């Protein structure tokens, strides 16, 4: 049985277990109220959990362990001279796995022919649609045979273990169903465990990502010193041939400057527009306008960034070049910082406006009434009472939008170009950290060269920057949140 069949079996038996548990509890209670410690559904769930969870755990554990066991078998069967060559070993293992797959395809007669050496295994496999790189060596054939045996045995063992777990769980739980059994508690604990598992997946993924970034970045820093990286003013990672000692310069500052400069223009657009529209939505607009206009603004966040990129490239960029940059004599390129900043600013308007709107609306009505009753106008009330009260939340919204701006890639590629440059002129091409990460990883390069590894150093730095911003935003929000409560 394959894993899918096993899963189906688990599902089927669990459902059966549910029905069984439910039925038994109903029979035991004799329809009398209060005889059971929990409602029948809980007894059903109790049996279901006991049936499904152990079997699922065994299935997952064995499926995860299976490749390791198989690789181990292959190694044991390989001759010593292959084993000593570490680089060759992984190739050999995958070669044996291919042969093993081929052995499953051939007919018994062909197998016999291969064994006595009448025909070459390679040609037979090719006839069955499995092309091999080179001829099959005798020891590979041997190892492959063992591998097939072991893997078949493992499959049977998994099947047996899962079925045993299912049967044991079902019977054990069914026998234990008694009127005074606290079935609700087990269900409650299982749900709790599921929730903890779900949140640990998210946390562990983050940890995993950070660790993978960290190790690769450390490898990079062993080739290029952190001082050269973080203080370097020239970004020129020459794509040298593999093995060459020349590696170019990896100055982080031009990229950092480009990122900050573009984000600055983006915030210059997004913060006032977002904030004013949030104030209008929350304080002035009637409920009809609000319920129409708010989703419309939020659509901006749903437009794919590549579309914003087109817009920047074909409309905003040329407009700025022809009507601002050229007449002022400041630049000749349609790709410039200003274009990227403007378009990115439009993209993040909803991040500012939507969050700020919620925060402004959450300011208690009594504060508004208090101010209005003192003879303040609506704008005075907004400016002097509502905004100060909502400020921490608004700052949080702005910082969140900012980390969004810093992480943006697509708009920058299309609107600001890929030239790493540190300049004050907003009509020049510049680029950001994220664009360079894409650049460095999309070349045909070894993963051990500094040209590629620098992407991880950049990624780690970017991660630290945005994490810092998010933490700052959360701290500000948390610190001042209770001010008006």
């Amino acid at each position: 049985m394959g894993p899918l069949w096993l899963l189906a079996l688990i599902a089927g038996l669990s459902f059966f277990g549910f029905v069984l548990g439910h039925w038994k509890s109903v029979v035991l209670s004799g329809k009398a109220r209060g005889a059971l410690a929990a409602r029948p559904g809980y007894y059903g769930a109790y049996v279901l959990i006991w049936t499904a969870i152990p079997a699922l755990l065994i299935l997952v554990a064995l499926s995860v362990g299976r490749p390791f066991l198989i690789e181990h078998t292959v190694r044991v069967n390989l001759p010593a001279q292959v084993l000593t060559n570490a680089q060759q070993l992984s190739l050999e293992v995958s070669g044996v796995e291919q042969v093993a797959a081929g052995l499953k395809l051939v007919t018994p007669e062909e197998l016999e022919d291969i064994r006595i050496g009448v025909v070459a295994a390679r040609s037979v496999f090719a006839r069955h649609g499995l092309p091999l790189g080179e001829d099959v060596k005798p020891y590979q054939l041997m190892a492959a045979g063992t591998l097939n045996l072991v893997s078949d045995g493992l499959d049977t063992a998994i099947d047996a273990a899962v079925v045993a777990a299912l049967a044991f769980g079902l019977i054990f739980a069914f026998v234990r169903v008694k009127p005074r059994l606290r079935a609700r508690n087990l269900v409650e604990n299982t749900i709790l465990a599921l929730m903890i598992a779900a949140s640990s997946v998210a946390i562990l993924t983050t940890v995993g990502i950070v660790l993978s970034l960290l190790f690769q970045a450390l490898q990079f820093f062993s080739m290029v010193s952190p001082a050269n990286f973080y203080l370097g003013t020239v970004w020129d990672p020459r794509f040298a041939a593999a093995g060459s000692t020349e590696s170019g310069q990896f100055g982080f500052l031009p990229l950092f400057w480009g990122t900050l400069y573009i984000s600055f223009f983006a915030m210059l657009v997004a913060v006032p527009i977002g904030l004013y529209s949030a104030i209008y939505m929350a304080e002035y607009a009637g409920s009809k306008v609000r319920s129409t206009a708010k989703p419309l603004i939020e659509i901006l966040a749903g437009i794919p960034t590549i579309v914003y990129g087109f817009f920047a490239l074909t409309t905003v960029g040329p407009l700025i070049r022809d009507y601002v940059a050229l007449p002022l004599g400041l630049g000749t390129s349609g790709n410039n910082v200003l274009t990227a900043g403007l378009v990115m600013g439009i993209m993040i308007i909803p991040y500012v406006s939507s969050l700020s709107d919620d925060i402004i609306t959450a300011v208690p009505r009594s504060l508004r009434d208090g101010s209005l009753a003192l003879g303040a106008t609506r704008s005075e009330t907004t400016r002097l009472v509502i905004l100060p009260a909502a400020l921490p939340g608004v700052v949080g919204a702005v910082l969140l939008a900012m980390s969004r701006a810093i992480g943006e890639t697509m708009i920058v590629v299309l609107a600001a170009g890929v030239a790493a440059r540190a300049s004050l002129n907003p009509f020049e091409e510049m680029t950001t950290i994220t664009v360079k990460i894409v650049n460095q990883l999309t070349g045909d390069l070894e993963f051990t060269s500094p040209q590629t590894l620098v992407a991880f150093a950049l990624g780690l730095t970017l991660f630290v920057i945005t994490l810092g911003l998010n933490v700052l935003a959360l701290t500000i929000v948390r610190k001042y949140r209770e001010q008006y409560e």
Partner: protein
Amino acid sequence: MSAVQAATPFETVRTPDPANRPIKVHTAKVKVTYGQKEALHGVSIDIAEKAVTAFIGPSGCGKSTFLRCINRMNDTIAGARVEGKITLDEQDIYDPDLDVVELRARVGMVFQKPNPFPKSIFDNVAYGPRIHGLARSKADLEEIVVTSLQKASLFNEVKDRLSEPGTSLSGGQQQRLCIARAIAVSPEVILMDEPCSALDPIATAKVEELIDELRANFTIVIVTHSMQQAARVSQRTAFFHLGHLIEEGPTDHVFTNPLEQRTQDYITGRFG
């Protein structure tokens, strides 16, 4: 006045003011509708100057709604419509030419739940004077703040911590801060919407004492659920029921010798 009463299908029982105080606020046939629902069905009452008028009645009888008409706070509620006539010193407050902001500076309000701004105690009181430009200098402003806090009997408790947030005060102090905030813009009328309902008995006693003192300078209208409170602080009492003004007259008269059966029933606790 008689013409107005004749047109009203409901007749309010009135006992005239023996002290014969001048009239500060006059209302005639005030109706308030929220959307389709009429909450007030034509209320006519004269509110005496430099006296405390108490509005009593069971929940939902329209007394708070009526109170909020007097400084047009109902304007801020979407779907609320006010009909009828309300004058302050013989000036129609629903006149389109009248600036509602100016009206609210003349008719202050204190709310049910203390609602100090999340600012310092000083800034809370200085808020109104700053908006209306009442102080010419910093010293001027400080004087207004101190006087207002003194009038609200709060100054001695907070004089050493004027820069602390107003929200750090206790509930009763917060409510007196809100009263000080209202006094600071020198209103003529102060509306109080159940100002003690969120306070403990000691804080309540202090606020009641304060209301009694404020009567010398301000016209006060107070909505209350506590009959004892109405009896203690007010000179005139108006009893509302189901959106009608049932009876109004001198407080001692209304409480000891009500002319209407429903008033009698309510104050003796038979309903409400």
